[in-house]
């Protein structure tokens, strides 16, 4: 069915608010219900159902190939609007790869022409090659400009798009254009390989006097330099601009997605059953918690193993010496020790070795005085072991003693 230009123009003029909204969401495919909601939101005088029928009839909106019931702005119409707005369109990496392949084929043809000493064909190939490099520069320039425009739009303070929509656009640019393009432009990538091969071949052609004038080769070399330096730098700048934006929008989108899922779970199961209590563990030190069931069971097991009462320690029969001179002597000896002797890695073992001859009780008293002395700093370490000191035994962990720093 033919649609007259007058009818289409009148429809556009009357319902431009609808087209503004459709243009804003041009990268999306929309279900009929979404389209009706979008049209309703523009508060047009005509009914949404009527407007939707007209949009379809005039082929402003077309059904996508990929999915039945999903509609998109007709590409031909979108191109016309882009043309009006002078919008730069990014060029796909597939197209750039194709152009590079053409340049490789042109190189093969040029080699053949040189072998045959066919200068006319050689000149023709060089003309085409130069045009090929220029096309490549223009396409990449367009892509750069398109990326820069989207980044600028997404960064704008007075934007209309939600974070999710902006992320979709940025993500598409990131994955479909920027990353593959950076791969191509990489110093080890396809562009560099093509340029080096052409440079080598042109030098060969000049040396062998196949090309009578150096000027012919120099033009292409100049174009290649432009591509390799300016374009690569431009895309790096794009990456620098796009990367933080991409990361920020991605994070916002994930937060929103997670939040929506949590709320759905709360709605479906109720908050108490939504398993959220344990999602953010914190500390909550409780003294009562230290007496755990496991500890009680372990204690009970130990009691069961005791088959006879413990031996009675006869303190009266083995009194500590009333004379504390031995203790004072040991403490004085430690105080006068050079600082380089500290730290003592195992205090009790050291006391036993150095002062064990003074007896069991003085060594123990010195030990207890030193660990509580503010001039020293004691730290306790596992494992627990048994120390044999002057005929007695002490079961304890290793104690490290160091001098406390004085300010």
């Amino acid at each position: 069915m033919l649609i007259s230009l007058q009818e289409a123009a009148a429809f556009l003029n009357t319902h431009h608010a609808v087209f503004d909204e459709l243009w804003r969401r041009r990268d999306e495919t929309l279900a009929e219900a979404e389209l009706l909601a979008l049209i309703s939101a523009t508060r047009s005088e005509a009914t949404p159902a009527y407007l939707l029928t007209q949009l379809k009839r005039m082929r402003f909106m077309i059904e996508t190939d990929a999915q039945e019931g999903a509609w998109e702005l007709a590409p031909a119409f979108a191109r016309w609007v882009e043309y009006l707005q002078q919008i730069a369109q990014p060029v796909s990496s597939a197209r750039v790869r194709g152009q590079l392949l053409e340049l490789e084929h042109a190189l093969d043809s040029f080699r053949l022409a040189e072998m045959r000493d066919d200068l006319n064909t050689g000149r023709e190939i060089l003309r085409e090659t130069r045009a090929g490099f220029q096309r490549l520069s223009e396409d990449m320039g367009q892509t750069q400009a398109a990326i820069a425009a989207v980044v600028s739009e997404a960064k704008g303070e007075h934007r209309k798009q939600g974070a999710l929509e902006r992320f979709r656009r940025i993500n598409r640019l990131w994955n479909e254009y920027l990353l593959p393009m950076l791969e191509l432009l990489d110093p080890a990538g396809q562009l560099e390989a093509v340029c080096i091969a052409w440079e080598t071949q042109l030098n060969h052609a000049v040396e062998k006097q196949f090309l009578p004038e150096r000027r012919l080769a120099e033009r292409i070399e100049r174009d290649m330099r432009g591509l390799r330096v300016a374009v690569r730098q431009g895309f790096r700048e794009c990456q620098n601009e796009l990367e933080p934006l991409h990361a920020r929008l991605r994070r916002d989108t994930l937060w929103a997605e997670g939040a929506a899922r949590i709320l759905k779970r709360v709605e479906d199961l109720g908050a108490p059953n939504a398993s959220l209590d344990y999602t953010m563990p914190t500390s909550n030190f409780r003294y009562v918690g230290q007496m755990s069931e496991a500890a009680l069971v372990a204690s009970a097991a130990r009691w069961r193993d005791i088959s006879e009462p413990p031996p009675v320690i006869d303190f009266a029969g083995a009194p500590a010496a009333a004379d504390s001179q031995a203790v004072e002597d040991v403490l004085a000896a430690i105080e006068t020790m050079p600082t380089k002797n500290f730290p003592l890695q195992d205090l009790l073992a050291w006391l036993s070795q150095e002062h064990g001859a003074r007896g069991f009780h003085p060594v123990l008293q010195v030990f207890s005085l030193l660990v509580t002395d503010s001039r020293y700093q004691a730290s306790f370490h596992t494992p627990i072991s048994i120390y044999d000191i002057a005929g007695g035994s002490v079961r304890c962990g290793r104690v490290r003693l160091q001098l406390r720093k004085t300010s």
Partner: protein
Amino acid sequence: MNSSASSLPQIASIFHGIKTGRHWCFGDPEYDDLSGDLFDQYQTFFAQLELKLHRDARGFIYATSDDDDTKGSGQITAFVVFTAVWVDAVADAGEDVGRSLFAANQRVADLPHLRSEAHRRALAQVGVQAPGDLEKLMRSMSRLGLVDMDGQSRFTLRAAFNRLLDVCLDETRRPANSATTDTATDQTTTTTNTPTSATTEAQS
């Protein structure tokens, strides 16, 4: 390594905080002490009490208990629902989530939580029905060091609030169908979710 209490200058204040689930952020006096050279010693010391100290690269430190009885609470559920509603409302409005949430000196009265019916329903389940309840909840968060509040009902989120946003991120990593099959007794999956990959933990 020396991990005696006497060699740790802020031990009393930090232990007091740990008892209440406190988070220390950049700017807190305890944060300077905890995040510096002494972190390993603090971590070793608290490990003896079955408390694990976590240092997050985003500028905050907190502890978790090994004791399962003390890990979860209904209050955490309320915090998570509060956060999810806020993120959902901000995203619906098309605003940048991070920028909106972390804006300085916001008013509790301006929070979007109670504007939509669906959000009010979700919040009612955790006891939040009026603006006063929202403020009460925020004061609880403030005690945990997640939020800074002043006396005029104004607040600023602290770096540690990222832990609640991590819960939203973790949710996106859960299989979609697990949302309806989980029960409150299934603690294994949720407790292993945190801390997220965004956190860095110093190993002693």
